[in-house]
């Protein structure tokens, strides 16, 4: 009996290290499904970043390179310029992409580098134990904002999709979520589109996935998904911020 749903081939069959209720696993799977569907695992190089997903090189079946914190888009650029026919993607968290890596992110985007960036935004630094991130919400309590993020001291969160949408080199900037079956299906479509745009040479593609961190938010998986809907999505509205394909 054929399976209607099974593990994608591009996802290595090993247990993952993520916390219970963490949505990393879902998004890894969506990327792997896309590689299977597009039949491109053999010519794909993934760039692992630094954060909870630092071990992502263990889970994707394509060739992988581990990048320093924040530098994945630059490492991806080096690979893509060496093998333009390869499919190159990065998988980054909010600190990696929007704190230490902001310059690399913005410049890969404005160069229209034909890479796909999967951006996991959970408004916190997971791997190092729950510190404030550039996308932490005003008032949100974290280890380094124990009284809640005070915008007078720590400023405002960055809305990455909105910011990058002003750059001409960006072919797709879309924000999705992984909090429900409906949104996961949407996220899959966005990720698939991003990779297709890369293969068509349209430019830089980024999919921002609003995600939960039950462990560092101090909630159960069920409650964290609800918190995400109630608090993060109003600040980071889901939707398409730039789509060169739709403009044509």
């Amino acid at each position, binding site marked *: 009996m054929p*399976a209607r*749903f099974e593990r994608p081939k591009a996802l290595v069959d090993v247990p993952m290290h993520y916390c219970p209720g963490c949505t990393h696993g879902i998004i890894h799977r969506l990327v792997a499904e896309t590689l299977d569907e597009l039949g491109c695992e053999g010519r794909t190089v993934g760039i692992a970043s630094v954060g909870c997903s630092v071990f992502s090189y263990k889970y994707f079946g394509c060739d992988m390179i581990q990048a320093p914190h924040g530098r994945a888009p630059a490492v991806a650029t080096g690979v893509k310029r060496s093998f333009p026919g390869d499919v190159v993607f990065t998988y980054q968290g909010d600190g990696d992409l929007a704190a230490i890596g902001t310059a690399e992110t913005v410049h890969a985007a404005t160069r229209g580098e034909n890479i796909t960036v999967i951006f996991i935004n959970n408004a916190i630094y997971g791997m190092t134990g729950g510190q404030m991130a550039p996308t932490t919400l005003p008032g949100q309590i974290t280890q380094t904002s124990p009284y809640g993020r005070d915008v007078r001291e720590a400023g405002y969160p960055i809305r990455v999709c909105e910011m990058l949408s002003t750059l001409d080199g960006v072919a797709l900037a879309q924000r999705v979520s992984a909090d429900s079956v409906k949104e996961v299906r949407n996220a899959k479509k966005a990720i698939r589109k991003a990779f297709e745009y890369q293969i068509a040479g349209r430019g830089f593609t980024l999919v921002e996935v609003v995600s939960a961190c039950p462990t560092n938010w101090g909630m159960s*998986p069920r409650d964290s998904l609800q918190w995400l809907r109630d608090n993060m999505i109003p600040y980071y509205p889901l939707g398409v911020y730039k789509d060169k394909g739709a403009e044509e």
Partner: protein
Amino acid sequence: MCVIACPRKIIVLDKSAMNGKGYHPARLADPSGCTGCGSCALMCPDVAITVIA
């Protein structure tokens, strides 16, 4: 997360069992109620579910 996602609410955490990581694994409590919609599999972060139509 499969427990939350299942529209038929037929997945439960099996309190009588414990897996290698120290958690109660999910179990399909009522196989006859399963429509094969795949919602559970879609929401499983560990890709632990295979859905056979």
